[in-house]
């Protein structure tokens, strides 16, 4: 393979610099004792202290984590069972129809998911708040889990199940002793992805959260609309660290699952 030319290297370096500059800019000013993002006056950790001393913010952080964990656990359970069901569907037409329905929420823009869920919750009388946010997060995570688990299920040789049946395993045994262990890496990848989607979501939550309940991204949005507060910078440094950990964890599992990692979709 040809070596990279100098302009190519400079170009790539420039792209990387531009991609990372805003993130490091944010983190850098989180240590600024002056209150702005334009002149650095001195080193301080007071903005981090502000994050940890702000009870309201900590409650919001806890809400966010609880919603993320619960929604990814529940959506993983439903998604894994759904994927197993889809693979065993005999009729190819039904299977393809189900798969197309599965992709709808993945490709839909967040505004549409948010707006339609808002109508739905209002119609069936779910109070906007924790419940509506949790249900929405479960709803948009399920198809992601299905997509992460399906390839694993498809590559599994059917003779494994036949062998288990021949050896006298019950259906339940086949599920818990054969299928689930085999697709485990896919399940973990799906769980991680659901977790990051939930933590990252702003638009859907923005529509379905009422006045009383707030997640971190909603809070950051209202803070950012009010202007610059270095508390957001400290928060973003912390979030960056957590995100990095999650991404690396996710890659670890997808590498083991032998799948090419996804983009994380267009969930922006």
């Amino acid at each position, binding site marked *: 393979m*040809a070596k990279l030319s100098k302009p*190519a290297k400079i170009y*790539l370096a420039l*792209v*990387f610099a531009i*991609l990372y500059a*805003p*993130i490091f*800019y*944010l983190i850098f000013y989180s240590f600024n004792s002056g209150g702005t*993002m*334009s*002149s650095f006056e001195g080193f301080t950790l007071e903005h981090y202290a502000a994050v940890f001393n702000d009870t309201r913010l900590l409650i919001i952080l806890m809400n966010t984590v609880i919603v993320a964990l619960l929604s990814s656990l529940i959506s993983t359970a*439903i*998604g894994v*069972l*759904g994927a197993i*069901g*889809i693979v*065993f*569907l*005999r009729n190819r037409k039904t*299977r*393809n129809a*189900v798969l197309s*329905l599965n992709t*709808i929420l993945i490709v*839909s*823009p*967040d*505004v*549409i998911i948010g*707006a*339609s*869920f808002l*109508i*739905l919750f209002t119609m069936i009388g779910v109070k906007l708040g924790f419940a509506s946010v949790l249900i929405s997060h479960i709803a948009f995570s*399920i198809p992601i889990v299905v997509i992460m688990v399906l390839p694993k299920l498809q590559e599994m040789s*059917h003779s494994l*199940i036949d062998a288990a049946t021949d050896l006298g395993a019950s*259906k339940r045994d086949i599920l818990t002793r054969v299928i689930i262990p085999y697709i485990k890496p896919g399940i973990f990848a799906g769980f991680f992805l659901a977790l*990051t989607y939930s933590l*990252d979501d702003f*638009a859907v939550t*923005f*529509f379905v959260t009422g006045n009383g309940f707030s997640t971190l991204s909603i809070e*950051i*949005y209202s803070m*950012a609309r009010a202007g610059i507060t270095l508390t*957001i910078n400290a928060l973003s440094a912390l*979030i960056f660290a957590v*995100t*990095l950990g*999650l*991404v690396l964890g996710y890659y670890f599992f997808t590498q083991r699952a032998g799948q090419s990692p996804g*983009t*994380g*979709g*267009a969930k*922006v």
Partner: protein
Amino acid sequence: MKDNPSRPFYLVPYYLWIALFVIAPITLIFYFSFLDLTGAFTLENYQNFFSSVYLRMTLSSFWYAFLITLITILIAYPTAYWLTKTKHKQLWLLLIIIPSWINLLLKAYAFIGIFGLYGPANKLLQTLGAGPWQILFTDFSFIFVSVYIFIPFMVLPIFNSLDKINPALIDASRDLGASSFTTFRRVIFPLAINGVKSGVQAVFIPALSLFVITRLIAGNKVITLGTAIEQQFLVTQNWGMGSTIAMFLILFMIIIMMLTGQKEKGGSYNGKTK
């Protein structure tokens, strides 16, 4: 999987999900698009949509999305191309993708600081002799930030399709006397066009529908379809009009996906059609 008994009970919660959160919401949006503010049946929303105000908004939203997509391709294509030639390409690719996992709001917030009146962008301009400019809340800042956010989503699919090309084909083209440019135009580009298509899908639709960037970075200078929907639902509380715009956004989305659709999908999940 012929002789296996189907297990519909696995599918019960999943089917419930499809009914409640895939089919019902779309049906509701469709239904609400025919309701006026009092909840009576009307076609007025659709009439309004074809009035000059909404048509102009739709056109400008498309124009911005087009510009954003084009610039993103122009930046991402060479990036992806050269990335495939680096030594640890998967690692470099991972580094390109990581920023896309950072919350969108934080990236937008960073640009509030960078483009601010006293921010680094204006400082740079001042050292170059140009006065401080109002960069924030202009359409330039909107396009810049959008392109910044979408670059990873464009690099990834293009990288994947470039990476799949058999190097023997490129060698063959060279051996047959093609120049590098001809090789690119006649061999590499056509083979990697599917990556560009997936990238366009991943960028164009969000560019039409994102409302965070417009709200935080563009002030009220730029109104995209997404911003309009958010406005109708959460500010004006006119769900009927909001649903109508949403119906059109869905329609545009379907058209774009058909235009950029591929016979043989790159996604691993679409297999099983043997």
